[in-house]
């Protein structure tokens, strides 16, 4: 298990993306899977940076854990911000017309589409979101 601890701010995004993608690269996965994981990483981290600590500041921890035998990995996002379960977020209407389109919720929707599984728990004052993906 490897981990990185960053300020939960948008400008930490490149650091978080590098951490995840560099670790993923060691495993050698397709362009398609790389981009899917990168999107999930960005969407979840940006959500934390925008909303977890409201006006205040805080940290976020990102962990990556590979299961070599099963050829899958877990990406874990932890923050100590306000409790938020992304699994309960409203699903955007992806069939809406141009004028009725909303972008809110799209990031979580894409994450759910691109990752195999997503688990959430709130424990000891921490939001813990685990994303699972086979490669």
């Amino acid at each position, binding site marked *: 298990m490897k981990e990185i601890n960053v300020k939960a701010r948008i400008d930490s995004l490149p650091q978080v993306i590098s951490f995840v993608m560099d670790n993923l690269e060691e495993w050698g996965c397709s362009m*398609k899977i790389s981009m899917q994981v990168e999107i999930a990483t960005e969407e979840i981290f940006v959500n934390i940076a925008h909303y977890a600590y409201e006006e205040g500041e805080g940290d976020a921890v990102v962990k990556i854990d590979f299961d070599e035998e099963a050829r899958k990995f877990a990406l874990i996002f932890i923050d100590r911000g306000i409790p938020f379960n992304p699994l309960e977020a409203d699903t955007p209407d992806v069939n809406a017309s141009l004028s009725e389109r909303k972008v809110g919720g799209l990031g979580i929707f*894409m994450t759910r589409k691109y990752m195999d599984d997503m688990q959430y728990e709130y424990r000891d004052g921490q939001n813990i979101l685990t994303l699972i993906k086979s490669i």
Partner: protein
Amino acid sequence: MTVTTNLEGEKLTVALRGRLDTLTSRDLETELESLLANPDIKVLVIDMKELEYISSAGLRVMLDAARTMEDKGEMIVTNLCSEVMDVFSITGFSEVFTIR
């Protein structure tokens, strides 16, 4: 990300190169707003030939541009690589945008 623009008569082509993410989409949004303030523009072509990555922040900028162009003429998104096309497909944006 690099943005290259080319205005020919009423057609503006905006070529995107690199990554359209939460950080870079802000710059593109500002640039498109100022470019599309030109009342002569009737056709906006977004060329994604060299775009490697797009997240929901990038889709938001595309949506805003498409709405602006709805009143002025049309917006065409072109040359999407398969990974970027997949993002448009799963989010249903492939149905609301004109993609060539």
